[in-house]
């Protein structure tokens, strides 16, 4: 597969490793035309009018853009196979890293691929989009299949399901079927209890922005700060940030100051409403959620 992030102006491509331009707080919300026309599977048409109640369509991310771009080689074959037989995803999911690589999508700012995801994240998200097509019309089966892929998956596969939910959320324009939303919430909650930073970061994307309750979402954001993962991982951060999140961030800053420890720069993004484009060079302190 040759994932391209060209549809996302903020993303230096994996091939060129572009300059470390300051990332905007979130990617543009408009899906790129290339993604829609790509081979990633049929993308549901414009959201139904009932979805207009939601303030904004889920924002596009690097992984979702790459998942929706045209694919070739092994991944294109796998996607076609999954569209014929959804259970083919069970074999493709664990293989994806070996077949497409594991490179970060935005190496200049995210060399580990934790914040913005990896090439294999995008491949698995594309597989999930194809699953969405294969199970078309049967949201219960799609939901059960996603839960199965997650439960049986290793960390990378679980991340793939979470990033795939992001892709489904964006493709549906904020109108995912209820069974998929319910399973997605369960899986996100599971990931948010994990200690692996890449799992936590994969659980705060467009799906989370659209579907996590505010309490769970706030804890997820503070957990990222706690783990030293950049808040650029959070989709629609500025839209969902509220006074309670600011209060939690202030308390954490006070706790760090009382301890004579560094206060992570990301906290200031939460304690004060962020001016657009104000991404500072991060000072991060890393805690695992140890016993």
């Amino acid at each position, binding site marked *: 597969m040759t994932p391209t992030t060209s549809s996302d102006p903020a993303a230096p491509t994996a091939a060129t490793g572009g300059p470390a331009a300051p990332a905007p707080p979130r990617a543009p919300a408009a899906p790129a035309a290339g993604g829609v026309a790509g081979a990633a599977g049929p993308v549901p048409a414009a959201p139904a009018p009932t979805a207009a109640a939601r303030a904004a369509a889920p924002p596009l991310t690097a992984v979702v853009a790459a998942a929706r771009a045209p694919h070739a080689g092994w991944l294109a074959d796998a996607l076609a196979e999954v569209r014929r037989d959804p259970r083919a995803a069970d074999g493709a999911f664990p293989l994806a890293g070996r077949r497409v690589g594991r490179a970060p999508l935005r190496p200049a700012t995210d060399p580990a691929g934790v914040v913005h995801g990896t090439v294999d994240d995008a491949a698995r998200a594309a597989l999930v989009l194809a699953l969405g097509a294969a199970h078309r019309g049967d949201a219960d089966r799609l939901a059960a299949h996603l839960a199965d892929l997650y439960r049986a998956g290793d960390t990378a596969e679980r991340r793939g399901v979470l990033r795939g939910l992001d892709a489904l959320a964006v493709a549906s324009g904020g109108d995912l079927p209820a069974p998929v939303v319910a399973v997605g919430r369960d899986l996100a909650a*599971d990931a948010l209890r994990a200690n692996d930073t890449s799992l936590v970061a994969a659980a705060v994307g467009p799906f989370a922005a659209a579907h996590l309750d505010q*309490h769970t979402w706030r804890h997820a954001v503070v957990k990222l700060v706690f783990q030293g993962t950049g808040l650029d991982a959070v989709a629609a951060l500025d839209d969902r940030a509220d006074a309670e999140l600011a209060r939690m961030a202030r*308390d954490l800053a006070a706790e760090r100051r009382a*301890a004579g420890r560094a206060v992570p720069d990301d906290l200031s993004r939460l304690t004060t409403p962020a001016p657009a484009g104000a991404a500072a060079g991060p000072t991060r302190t890393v805690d695992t959620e*140890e016993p």
Partner: protein
Amino acid sequence: MRIFDPHVHMTSRTTDDYEAMYAAGVRAIVEPAFWLGQPRTSVGSFVDYFDALLGWERFRAAQFGIRHHATIALNPKEANDPRCTEVLDVIPRYLAKDGVVAVGEVGYDAMTPAEDEAFSRQLALALDAELPVLVHTPHRDKQAGTRRTLDVVRESGLPAGRVLVDHLNETTVAAVRDAGAWAGFSIYPDTKMDETRMVAILREYGTERMIVNSAADWGRSDPLKTWRTGMTMLEQGFTEDDVDRVLWRNPVEFYGQSGNLVLDPVPGFVAEAPPAPATFEGSSVLRGVRA
């Protein structure tokens, strides 16, 4: 210096750690049941873990001259997984066993309704079993979590003196002491609390109802932090008796409320010479010396 480490996850540690702990003066420990880096998915996984805490780990500690005790509970993080919560039905059986000196770790992680339920149910179990309770305070939103913890404890009807609220810091210690509970501090290489900050807190609040632990586990941690805190206390003018109170008499008084502490020396133990027969259900911690 005699040391009782009231919170250390020895299942994650090596025999080198046991040897170093003994050499530093550690003679008794409490290992609280908690989460592992990888989430559990079934009640059976908890049962095996509890059995290992009360069986193999106690045996292993004794090989190194250290008396091992445990606390048993469903931890707050895994209380959020419905596949795990049925473990609450088997916990009363464990609370009656030898060497179980408290219910714990209970408390809050993300402060969810499921955590509320598990916390209050287990406080009730402690009341029935007449055991003390070890309460974990959350990493995220610690101040709010500590206040809510103290409210729930108050409502449970447990005497505050039977409750140890752990992982405290400069911003949470006062509320716990004001409530009449025991104040626990986990001394970590660079996060929760360090030995210099700990000594400053002891100077401000005194040594009564103050508990110091290493909380060493699978993360970056140090099972000798209890000893290092004792040394720092001595360097900064505390007496040998002060150190003995904080590192031995206080935890003994707290967990002694269970009536289930064993503090006499391991019979036949000679440092660097594990006693025979050195096997537990056919397994030995020795290597290369058995037929």
